[in-house]
């Protein structure tokens, strides 16, 4: 029996180490400051901006609460890779016996979960202080939609993080992807307010469909929710798989050319 659980325990340990690698050197106070005060402050900024414009603050609070998942899902995944390169441990990851796919999925696992928790925190603020109506919410659907959205964003995070191996500046790539999510995915204004070409871009990004589904679930509507969630899951999966195959290619290229840490 213990033989059966050993791989699971090993995988969980891998996931935990990948997550702690981001925060292990911070004090608990620093960690809580980043995880609680910063997301709430970001949410407040955009919600107050909308409120000043005379629009419904609940719309902004909900959009930004869900968008907060990208702070963990996107930034978390990318920063782990940046730290790996800076510390010179990427070679060890590639050379180790653990299949690379297992390592990458473990990296994403807790970042997605962390994104979900950050979003729940933001939703709590939205429900308590910005009049977001909770009476119509179907909680099971909402949790499912948040989970899918958070992991879809982590899929994008994995995809973006791989570009670092090919010499792309990850700080720029990560913030560029974050900007796309903030501007194009219906966080602060509806996607259909964008020009048509940009709407097409929005539909290829995670968060767009997930947020649309979440807005519908909170409003108590059910039509289109499943379709949006299927799209969100598919888009997240495609980014995640693309990230995996790109990494395999980078691994192959690094072994053949021996240039892993030279680009």
């Amino acid at each position, binding site marked *: 029996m213990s033989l059966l659980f050993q791989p699971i325990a090993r995988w969980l340990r891998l996931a935990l180490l990948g997550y702690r690698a981001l925060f292990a050197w*911070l*004090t608990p106070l*620093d960690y809580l*400051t*980043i995880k609680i*005060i*910063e997301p709430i*402050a*970001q949410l*407040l*900024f*955009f919600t*107050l*901006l*909308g*409120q*000043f*414009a*005379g*629009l419904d603050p609940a719309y902004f609070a909900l959009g930004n609460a869900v968008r907060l998942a990208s702070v963990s899902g996107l930034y978390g995944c990318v920063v782990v890779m940046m730290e790996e390169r800076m510390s010179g441990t990427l070679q060890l990851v590639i050379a180790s016996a653990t299949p690379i796919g297992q390592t990458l999925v473990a990296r994403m696992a807790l970042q997605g979960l962390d994104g979900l928790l950050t979003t729940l925190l933001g939703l709590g603020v939205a429900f308590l202080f910005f009049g977001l109506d909770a009476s119509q919410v179907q909680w099971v659907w909402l949790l499912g939609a948040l989970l899918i959205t958070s992991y879809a964003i982590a899929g994008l995070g994995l995809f973006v993080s791989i570009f670092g191996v090919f010499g792309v*500046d990850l*700080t*720029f790539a990560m*913030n*560029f992807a974050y*900007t796309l999510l*903030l*501007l194009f995915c219906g966080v*602060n*204004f509806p996607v259909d*307010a964008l020009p048509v070409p940009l709407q097409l871009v929005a539909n290829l990004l995670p968060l767009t469909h997930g947020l649309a589904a979440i807005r519908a679930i909170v409003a108590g509507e059910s039509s289109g929710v499943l379709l949006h969630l299927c799209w969100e899951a598919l888009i997240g999966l495609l980014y995640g798989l693309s990230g995996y195959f790109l990494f395999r290619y980078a691994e192959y290229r690094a072994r053949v050319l021996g240039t892993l840490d030279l680009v």
Partner: protein
Amino acid sequence: MANVHLFISTMAVHAASTIKRPFYRIVLFIQPIVIATTVHMIYRNAAEEQVARFILLGGGLAGIWSAMTFSTAGDVERERLQGVFSVLIAAPASLAFVFTAKIVMNTLLALLALVITILYSWLVLGVHFVLPHPAAFVLALSSFLFGTGAFALFLANIFLLTRTAWVFQNVLESPLLILGGVAFPVAILPTWARAISVVLPIRWGSEALYAALAATPPDAYFWQCVLWTMVTGALYWCLAQVLFHYIEYRVRWLGNLETA
């Protein structure tokens, strides 16, 4: 003369090292565009004359503030991480002198955020920049830059006391954008938040700039905002100088700069 040369050299080295940092380039070039676009889209159904000021200044002022936080305040942490800070302490030039040169350069670089916002708003968003009172605008902008610079210098000192300054840089950015009234007036905030904002030069500087872009001539409130920006800025400047001297004395006395 040697001091002038040192000041200019410090500025030049600082500009070269700052502009090379990818994150700084994002804060300077991308953030103003993001905020200007968001404000524009949010106000897309409002009358242009009502919102032009917020589109034009919102992104620019946010960019200036972020650039100042992530440069001036962040410089301290970077100097420490790179092991240069102890060299600066040991150098004949005072720490306050070196950081003043850095902050002047940061201020000049941060101005780019405003220029980018104005150009982007004009060329892409179609919002025209009209300066009804150029002299008042220049005065308000100068006081805003002085106030934010002094406040960032004060924060730099506070960050000296921790090895995880980046945590506080990130955490302070949005609250100060809210309390500073850069993209919406502080009048919409609760009373307690407005009370905190009274001691922030960024708040008075923002209000002075918005007043300078109004069609009506600068009134008593404009002058009051400029005055408060300068007063609060001078206060933080003095506090920063005192802290610099205290910290410099303390690390020389205790010898624990690299271990604290």
